Protein backbone atom coordinates (compact mmCIF):
# COMPACT_ATOMS: atom_id res chain seq x y z
CA UNK A 1 0.00 0.00 0.00
CA UNK A 2 1.54 3.36 -0.96
CA UNK A 3 2.07 5.81 1.81
CA UNK A 4 3.13 9.40 2.20
CA UNK A 5 5.86 10.02 4.71
CA UNK A 6 5.86 13.36 6.52
CA UNK A 7 8.83 14.37 8.65
CA UNK A 8 8.50 17.17 11.18
CA UNK A 9 11.36 18.72 13.15
CA UNK A 10 11.50 21.40 15.81
CA UNK A 11 12.71 24.65 14.27
CA UNK A 12 16.51 24.93 14.44
CA UNK A 13 16.38 27.90 16.80
CA UNK A 14 14.23 26.04 19.31
CA UNK A 15 16.07 24.14 21.99
CA UNK A 16 15.23 20.42 21.92
CA UNK A 17 15.53 19.21 25.51
CA UNK A 18 14.81 15.60 24.51
CA UNK A 19 17.61 15.65 21.96
CA UNK A 20 19.92 17.11 24.59
CA UNK A 21 19.07 14.27 26.98
CA UNK A 22 19.76 11.70 24.25
CA UNK A 23 23.11 13.18 23.27
CA UNK A 24 24.04 13.19 26.94
CA UNK A 25 23.25 9.47 27.25
CA UNK A 26 24.92 8.21 24.05
CA UNK A 27 28.48 8.23 25.44
CA UNK A 28 27.38 5.91 28.25
CA UNK A 29 27.05 3.19 25.60
CA UNK A 30 30.31 4.14 23.95
CA UNK A 31 28.81 6.22 21.15
CA UNK A 32 31.16 9.16 21.33
CA UNK A 33 31.04 10.43 17.74
CA UNK A 34 27.86 12.50 18.06
CA UNK A 35 28.00 16.12 19.13
CA UNK A 36 24.27 16.86 19.00
CA UNK A 37 20.94 15.08 18.60
CA UNK A 38 17.63 16.55 17.55
CA UNK A 39 14.49 14.46 17.80
CA UNK A 40 11.68 14.77 15.29
CA UNK A 41 8.47 13.08 14.25
CA UNK A 42 7.71 10.84 11.30
CA UNK A 43 4.14 10.32 10.10
CA UNK A 44 3.07 7.69 7.57
CA UNK A 45 -0.18 8.45 5.77
CA UNK A 46 -1.53 5.34 4.05
CA UNK A 47 -3.43 5.67 0.81
CA UNK A 48 -5.75 3.08 -0.73
CA UNK A 49 -4.83 3.12 -4.41
CA UNK A 50 -2.69 5.54 -6.31
CA UNK A 51 -1.21 8.68 -4.78
CA UNK A 52 -2.44 11.45 -7.06
CA UNK A 53 -1.18 15.02 -7.09
CA UNK A 54 -4.39 16.01 -5.31
CA UNK A 55 -3.80 13.50 -2.52
CA UNK A 56 -0.21 14.65 -2.17
CA UNK A 57 -1.44 18.24 -1.95
CA UNK A 58 -3.83 17.18 0.80
CA UNK A 59 -0.94 15.56 2.65
CA UNK A 60 1.08 18.77 2.41
CA UNK A 61 -1.88 20.76 3.67
CA UNK A 62 -2.39 18.34 6.58
CA UNK A 63 1.33 18.50 7.37
CA UNK A 64 1.26 22.29 7.50
CA UNK A 65 -1.99 22.71 9.42
CA UNK A 66 -2.24 19.74 11.76
CA UNK A 67 0.80 17.48 11.81
CA UNK A 68 3.06 20.43 12.60
CA UNK A 69 2.72 23.63 14.58
CA UNK A 70 4.42 26.35 12.52
CA UNK A 71 5.24 28.30 15.67
CA UNK A 72 7.70 25.64 16.80
CA UNK A 73 8.10 23.12 13.99
CA UNK A 74 9.04 22.81 10.32
CA UNK A 75 7.79 20.20 7.88
CA UNK A 76 11.13 19.04 6.48
CA UNK A 77 9.96 16.29 4.14
CA UNK A 78 6.80 15.06 2.39
CA UNK A 79 7.38 12.11 0.07
CA UNK A 80 5.60 9.17 -1.45
CA UNK A 81 6.92 5.73 -0.56
CA UNK A 82 5.66 2.84 -2.68
CA UNK A 83 6.27 -0.69 -1.42
Amino acid at each position, binding site marked *: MPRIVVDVM*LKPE*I*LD*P*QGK*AIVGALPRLGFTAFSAVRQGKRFELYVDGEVTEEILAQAREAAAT*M*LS*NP*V*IEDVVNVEVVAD
Partner: protein
Amino acid sequence: MTETPLIGGAVQTPVDSRLAGARIGVVTFPGTLDDRDAARAVRVSGATAVELWHGDSSLSDVDAVIIPGGFSYGDYLRAGAISRFAPLMGKIVDAATSNAKLPVLGICNGFQILTEAHLLPGSMIKNDHLLFLCRDQVLRVENNTSSWTNAYALGEEITVPLKNQDGQYIADEKTLDALEAEGRVAFRYVGSNPNGSRRDIAGITNAAGNVVGLMPHPEHAVEHGYGPAHTGTDGRGFFTSVLNTLLGDK
Protein backbone atom coordinates in the same frame (compact mmCIF):
# COMPACT_ATOMS: atom_id res chain seq x y z
CA MET B 1 -26.39 25.38 43.74
CA THR B 2 -24.55 26.19 46.95
CA GLU B 3 -21.22 24.44 47.37
CA THR B 4 -20.58 22.46 50.56
CA PRO B 5 -17.39 23.69 52.21
CA LEU B 6 -14.57 21.16 52.23
CA ILE B 7 -13.27 22.74 55.42
CA GLY B 8 -15.76 24.31 57.82
CA GLY B 9 -17.18 27.67 56.95
CA ALA B 10 -14.77 28.58 54.19
CA VAL B 11 -17.25 29.05 51.38
CA GLN B 12 -18.71 32.52 51.19
CA THR B 13 -22.28 33.11 50.24
CA PRO B 14 -22.43 35.28 47.13
CA VAL B 15 -22.52 38.95 48.01
CA ASP B 16 -24.34 39.72 44.81
CA SER B 17 -27.41 37.66 43.95
CA ARG B 18 -26.95 38.51 40.25
CA LEU B 19 -23.93 36.21 40.22
CA ALA B 20 -25.96 33.00 40.11
CA GLY B 21 -27.35 34.10 36.76
CA ALA B 22 -23.86 34.09 35.25
CA ARG B 23 -23.35 30.82 33.35
CA ILE B 24 -19.72 29.77 33.02
CA GLY B 25 -19.13 26.80 30.73
CA VAL B 26 -16.40 24.28 31.57
CA VAL B 27 -15.30 22.14 28.62
CA THR B 28 -14.47 18.45 29.03
CA PHE B 29 -12.38 16.63 26.41
CA PRO B 30 -11.36 12.97 26.57
CA GLY B 31 -8.43 13.14 28.99
CA THR B 32 -9.37 16.38 30.74
CA LEU B 33 -8.53 16.24 34.46
CA ASP B 34 -9.40 19.51 36.10
CA ASP B 35 -12.93 20.16 34.85
CA ARG B 36 -14.51 19.34 38.20
CA ASP B 37 -12.20 21.67 40.10
CA ALA B 38 -12.82 24.41 37.56
CA ALA B 39 -16.58 23.96 37.87
CA ARG B 40 -16.26 24.00 41.65
CA ALA B 41 -14.23 27.22 41.49
CA VAL B 42 -17.03 28.77 39.43
CA ARG B 43 -19.65 27.73 41.99
CA VAL B 44 -17.51 28.81 44.95
CA SER B 45 -17.33 32.22 43.28
CA GLY B 46 -21.12 32.37 43.19
CA ALA B 47 -21.79 31.70 39.50
CA THR B 48 -23.42 28.74 37.77
CA ALA B 49 -21.11 26.15 36.20
CA VAL B 50 -22.32 24.59 32.95
CA GLU B 51 -20.79 21.31 31.78
CA LEU B 52 -19.82 21.39 28.11
CA TRP B 53 -18.64 18.36 26.12
CA HIS B 54 -16.04 18.77 23.40
CA GLY B 55 -18.36 17.10 20.87
CA ASP B 56 -21.23 19.52 21.57
CA SER B 57 -22.32 21.70 18.69
CA SER B 58 -23.74 24.43 20.93
CA LEU B 59 -22.29 26.63 23.66
CA SER B 60 -25.55 26.30 25.63
CA ASP B 61 -25.89 30.07 26.04
CA VAL B 62 -22.95 30.33 28.43
CA ASP B 63 -21.57 33.78 29.26
CA ALA B 64 -17.94 32.65 29.45
CA VAL B 65 -15.92 29.46 28.91
CA ILE B 66 -13.12 27.79 30.85
CA ILE B 67 -10.93 25.22 29.10
CA PRO B 68 -9.43 23.30 32.00
CA GLY B 69 -6.22 21.38 32.43
CA GLY B 70 -5.43 17.75 31.84
CA PHE B 71 -4.14 15.65 28.97
CA SER B 72 -6.80 16.00 26.30
CA TYR B 73 -6.41 13.26 23.70
CA GLY B 74 -3.45 12.05 25.74
CA ASP B 75 -1.35 14.97 24.47
CA TYR B 76 -1.03 12.91 21.26
CA LEU B 77 0.61 14.73 18.34
CA ARG B 78 1.23 17.85 20.47
CA ALA B 79 -0.48 19.05 23.64
CA GLY B 80 -3.81 20.52 22.55
CA ALA B 81 -3.26 19.79 18.86
CA ILE B 82 -6.17 17.40 18.37
CA SER B 83 -8.53 19.11 20.83
CA ARG B 84 -8.28 22.23 18.74
CA PHE B 85 -10.33 20.51 16.04
CA ALA B 86 -13.15 19.43 18.38
CA PRO B 87 -16.59 20.61 17.23
CA LEU B 88 -17.08 22.84 20.26
CA MET B 89 -13.71 24.56 19.74
CA GLY B 90 -14.95 26.03 16.46
CA LYS B 91 -17.86 27.59 18.33
CA ILE B 92 -15.55 28.90 21.05
CA VAL B 93 -13.14 30.45 18.54
CA ASP B 94 -16.03 32.11 16.69
CA ALA B 95 -17.59 33.48 19.89
CA ALA B 96 -14.26 34.67 21.29
CA THR B 97 -13.35 36.54 18.12
CA SER B 98 -16.84 37.90 17.40
CA ASN B 99 -18.19 41.24 18.61
CA ALA B 100 -19.62 39.39 21.60
CA LYS B 101 -16.03 38.80 22.79
CA LEU B 102 -16.90 35.70 24.79
CA PRO B 103 -14.50 35.54 27.76
CA VAL B 104 -12.37 32.38 27.48
CA LEU B 105 -9.85 31.15 30.05
CA GLY B 106 -7.41 28.36 29.20
CA ILE B 107 -5.60 26.75 32.12
CA CYS B 108 -2.54 24.53 31.51
CA ASN B 109 -3.70 22.12 28.78
CA GLY B 110 -6.42 24.69 28.11
CA PHE B 111 -3.71 27.28 27.43
CA GLN B 112 -2.00 24.83 25.07
CA ILE B 113 -5.32 24.30 23.26
CA LEU B 114 -5.82 28.08 22.90
CA THR B 115 -2.39 28.47 21.30
CA GLU B 116 -3.04 25.56 18.94
CA ALA B 117 -6.37 27.20 18.05
CA HIS B 118 -4.48 30.48 17.36
CA LEU B 119 -6.57 32.39 19.89
CA LEU B 120 -3.30 33.15 21.66
CA PRO B 121 0.18 33.45 20.13
CA GLY B 122 3.20 31.24 20.82
CA SER B 123 3.33 27.65 21.95
CA MET B 124 4.42 25.40 24.78
CA ILE B 125 7.25 22.88 24.51
CA LYS B 126 8.74 20.47 27.04
CA ASN B 127 10.11 21.97 30.24
CA ASP B 128 13.80 22.74 29.82
CA HIS B 129 14.65 20.21 32.56
CA LEU B 130 12.36 17.56 30.94
CA LEU B 131 10.66 16.72 34.24
CA PHE B 132 7.06 16.91 35.29
CA LEU B 133 7.07 19.68 37.88
CA CYS B 134 4.44 20.14 40.60
CA ARG B 135 4.89 22.97 43.09
CA ASP B 136 3.32 26.09 44.52
CA GLN B 137 4.26 28.93 42.21
CA VAL B 138 4.39 32.66 42.85
CA LEU B 139 3.14 34.77 39.93
CA ARG B 140 3.16 38.53 39.43
CA VAL B 141 0.05 40.10 37.93
CA GLU B 142 1.20 42.22 34.97
CA ASN B 143 -2.15 42.96 33.37
CA ASN B 144 -5.24 43.72 35.43
CA THR B 145 -7.54 44.90 32.69
CA SER B 146 -8.48 41.60 31.03
CA SER B 147 -11.75 39.75 31.57
CA TRP B 148 -9.97 37.25 33.82
CA THR B 149 -7.51 39.47 35.73
CA ASN B 150 -9.36 42.69 36.59
CA ALA B 151 -9.94 41.71 40.23
CA TYR B 152 -6.19 41.75 40.91
CA ALA B 153 -3.96 44.73 41.62
CA LEU B 154 -1.22 45.47 39.11
CA GLY B 155 2.02 43.99 40.44
CA GLU B 156 0.18 41.83 42.98
CA GLU B 157 1.90 38.53 43.72
CA ILE B 158 -0.28 35.45 43.96
CA THR B 159 0.55 31.82 44.72
CA VAL B 160 -1.19 29.00 42.87
CA PRO B 161 -0.20 25.41 42.02
CA LEU B 162 1.83 24.66 38.89
CA LYS B 163 1.90 21.12 37.47
CA ASN B 164 3.01 20.21 33.98
CA GLN B 165 5.71 18.75 31.76
CA ASP B 166 5.11 20.83 28.63
CA GLY B 167 5.06 24.26 30.22
CA GLN B 168 7.89 26.10 28.50
CA TYR B 169 6.27 29.08 26.79
CA ILE B 170 7.98 30.08 23.58
CA ALA B 171 7.34 32.54 20.77
CA ASP B 172 9.60 34.38 18.36
CA GLU B 173 11.24 37.60 19.55
CA LYS B 174 8.94 39.79 17.50
CA THR B 175 5.86 38.22 19.08
CA LEU B 176 7.37 38.49 22.58
CA ASP B 177 8.22 42.16 22.01
CA ALA B 178 4.67 42.83 20.81
CA LEU B 179 3.17 41.06 23.84
CA GLU B 180 5.30 43.20 26.15
CA ALA B 181 4.60 46.45 24.29
CA GLU B 182 0.86 45.86 24.27
CA GLY B 183 0.68 44.87 27.94
CA ARG B 184 -0.45 41.38 27.04
CA VAL B 185 1.84 39.50 29.40
CA ALA B 186 -0.76 38.72 32.07
CA PHE B 187 1.40 36.81 34.55
CA ARG B 188 5.11 36.28 35.05
CA TYR B 189 6.86 33.70 37.19
CA VAL B 190 8.47 35.15 40.31
CA GLY B 191 11.64 33.56 41.64
CA SER B 192 13.29 30.78 39.66
CA ASN B 193 11.81 30.17 36.22
CA PRO B 194 10.16 26.73 36.56
CA ASN B 195 10.42 25.58 32.95
CA GLY B 196 12.51 27.88 30.77
CA SER B 197 9.56 29.97 29.57
CA ARG B 198 10.68 32.96 27.52
CA ARG B 199 10.86 36.13 29.58
CA ASP B 200 9.39 34.26 32.60
CA ILE B 201 5.97 34.38 30.97
CA ALA B 202 3.34 32.31 32.80
CA GLY B 203 0.22 33.64 31.10
CA ILE B 204 -0.89 35.99 28.34
CA THR B 205 -4.02 37.66 27.02
CA ASN B 206 -5.26 38.40 23.52
CA ALA B 207 -5.43 41.98 22.26
CA ALA B 208 -9.08 42.36 23.20
CA GLY B 209 -8.48 41.08 26.73
CA ASN B 210 -11.26 38.50 26.66
CA VAL B 211 -9.04 35.45 26.10
CA VAL B 212 -6.45 34.57 28.75
CA GLY B 213 -4.24 31.50 29.00
CA LEU B 214 -1.78 30.44 31.68
CA MET B 215 0.06 27.30 32.70
CA PRO B 216 -0.45 27.47 36.51
CA HIS B 217 -3.76 26.47 38.09
CA PRO B 218 -5.88 29.17 39.78
CA GLU B 219 -8.82 26.75 40.06
CA HIS B 220 -6.86 24.71 42.60
CA ALA B 221 -6.48 27.75 44.86
CA VAL B 222 -9.98 28.93 45.68
CA GLU B 223 -10.67 27.40 49.10
CA HIS B 224 -8.97 27.82 52.46
CA GLY B 225 -7.01 24.75 53.40
CA TYR B 226 -6.64 23.36 49.87
CA GLY B 227 -4.53 25.82 47.92
CA PRO B 228 -0.94 26.82 48.63
CA ALA B 229 -0.19 27.41 52.29
CA HIS B 230 -0.25 31.12 52.91
CA THR B 231 -3.86 31.77 52.07
CA GLY B 232 -4.80 29.16 49.55
CA THR B 233 -7.34 31.34 47.79
CA ASP B 234 -5.24 33.51 45.50
CA GLY B 235 -6.78 31.90 42.42
CA ARG B 236 -10.25 33.14 43.16
CA GLY B 237 -9.57 36.48 41.47
CA PHE B 238 -9.80 34.86 38.02
CA PHE B 239 -13.38 33.89 38.67
CA THR B 240 -14.42 37.12 40.34
CA SER B 241 -12.76 39.00 37.46
CA VAL B 242 -14.93 37.37 34.82
CA LEU B 243 -18.01 37.98 36.95
CA ASN B 244 -17.03 41.67 37.19
CA THR B 245 -16.81 41.68 33.41
CA LEU B 246 -20.13 39.92 32.90
CA LEU B 247 -21.94 42.16 35.37
CA GLY B 248 -20.45 45.21 33.70
CA ASP B 249 -18.67 46.38 36.84
CA LYS B 250 -15.29 46.51 35.09
